[in-house]
């Protein structure tokens, strides 16, 4: 870039920075306000819109933790089980599928791959109604099975697509070399491809976790009894059973609900953002 060009772009920088800082405040304010409200005494939450308080308290967390009848820890554990197993299933099934699509040629492959992309676009409700009827008929309502099993069958086309993109970016020579050395096809996949895929698998795992952890619709239809509730259901139960003025504990439990996602995001932010960027472009 030439000197003049740089000079031309230098001036709007200040303007850009000011804009970005203002936008940052607007963007982050709801979250900061939620955290602030969660440690304010009841009478102060709405009397001042500032997130800060002179007399912080943890009472809201104490009240909220038991507020839904079942301790909030039960919801966190249930969510952990559902989302954790969904991650395991999704990583295994989507990786196998993606490798099959990325590295093998067979008849009808383009049609099948188009089917993968179509499942990304298909509203899940049309599936869920029949799936619900099916699971109801075999007595699996109010269990975690309907929430976990589908992830072991690679129904999330989004991640298949993400991994196909990534595998296509790997040099095929390494796999050829392993094949020449007498490795079986599964050995090539397991010993050569999977280790190279680690970054994409981390992205898949994190995004699956976040998605399943926050999924509301399917958990709402499948889980009925409070001791099986996951975090979104527990939170909803809590706001339904709380008077509208008890906002401190509600904000406290909302904060607790978001902690796992925020922590994962802070640890793996690069992977997550690169993964999202990859879906729109190339791997």
């Amino acid at each position: 870039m030439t000197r003049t060009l740089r000079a031309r772009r230098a001036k709007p920088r200040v303007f850009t920075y000011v804009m970005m800082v203002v936008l940052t405040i607007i963007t982050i304010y709801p979250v900061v306000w939620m955290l602030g409200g969660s440690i304010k005494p009841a009478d102060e939450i709405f009397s001042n819109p500032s997130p800060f308080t002179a007399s912080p308290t943890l009472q809201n967390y104490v009240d909220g933790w038991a507020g839904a009848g079942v301790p909030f820890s039960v919801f966190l554990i249930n969510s952990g089980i559902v989302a954790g197993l969904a991650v395991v299933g999704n990583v295994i099934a989507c990786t196998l599928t993606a490798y099959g699509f990325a590295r093998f040629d067979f008849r009808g492959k383009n049609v099948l791959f188009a089917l993968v992309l179509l499942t990304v676009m298909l509203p899940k409700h049309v599936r869920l109604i029949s799936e619900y009827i099916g699971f109801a008929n075999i007595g699996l309502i109010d269990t975690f099975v309907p929430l976990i099993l589908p992830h072991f069958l690679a129904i999330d086309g989004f991640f298949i697509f993400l991994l196909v993109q990534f595998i296509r970016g790997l040099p095929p020579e390494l796999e050829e070399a392993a094949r020449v050395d007498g490795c079986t096809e599964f050995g090539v996949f397991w010993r050569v491809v999977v280790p190279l895929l680690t970054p994409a698998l981390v992205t898949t795992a994190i995004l699956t976790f976040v998605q399943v952890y926050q999924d509301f619709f399917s958990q709402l239809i499948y889980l009925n009894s409070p001791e099986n509730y996951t975090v979104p259901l527990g939170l909803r139960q809590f706001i339904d059973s709380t008077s509208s003025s008890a906002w401190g504990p509600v904000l406290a439990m909302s904060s607790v609900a978001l902690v796992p996602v925020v922590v994962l995001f802070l640890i793996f932010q690069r992977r997550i953002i690169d993964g999202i960027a990859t879906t729109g472009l190339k791997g």
Partner: protein
Amino acid sequence: MSKKLIAEANPLAALSPRAANAGSAKKPRQGQGYSARRGRIGLLFLAPWFVGILLLVIAPLIASAYFSLTDYDLITRPNFIGFDNYERMATDDRFWQSMKVTGTYVLFSVPFTLIASLAVAMLLKGGLKALSFFRLVFYLPSLLGASVAIAVVWRQMFSGDGLINGLLALVGIDGPAWVSNPDYSLGTVILLAIWQFGSPMVIFLAGLKQIPESLYDAAALDGASRIQVFRNVTLPLLSPVIFFNLVLGFINAFQAFTPAFIISGGSGGPADSNLFITLYLFQQGFGALDMGYAAALAWVLVIVVGLVTAVNFALQKYWVFYEDRT
């Protein structure tokens, strides 16, 4: 060249008929027997997916279509009632209300989110030192926005004595009870969608990075203004990415559920102003146990999403620029 990469890698481009071969790997042809055997091994890797697509996608789709022609209530045997469920929609005011609410939401949330995300991406791409910080902050809402927790926070923020009215009171404005007022309630849900502009923004930033700097330098040498550069360099080269965000934005917006459910306490209120189609089919299927009608509503949603996506694809040839095809 990088434009070609965008075009090739864009998953939606892979679906268009002109790119029918985009999915096939470029490999040297080997002996016939060898490749057929390898093909069969490939199919083995797809085994879980085959089971999933048959049992959890295709079969449920067909079953839903069948149930939509019955009066199934989960308890008694389904009776075949032809197209009664679909005819019922024609005179069902709440169905039309749900279409209106969903349509309004989609028409406002998708374009505004895209414009906001593109504008911020353009501002950020100049190579600010703090780029990664801003990208981080702006992306966070996309990760949190679909949660019940944020919907709860939103409900509190926009309630009569909530944060927003607290802020408005500072400048002497007496705001309405946003979430419980039918005129504003849907607006708060739309705002929540726009708040999540970070996800398309990240994709735009990656797309902008693929546009070669030399094109901007050439345009600058020719004395092009900023607006001319944006219209003649940035927009066309970014159009496949805009298309991707647009199509996915529409598909996702039609399926919005959680915020409307939480803000309205599951009712779709006030005065059905938050009665999204997903919420209505939930009420019909899992509240009233009218699975037949819910299945019909779900199929209408599929058809609407399919039509909108098809129209998007049909229109792309007028504005989406793929270098290798023009």
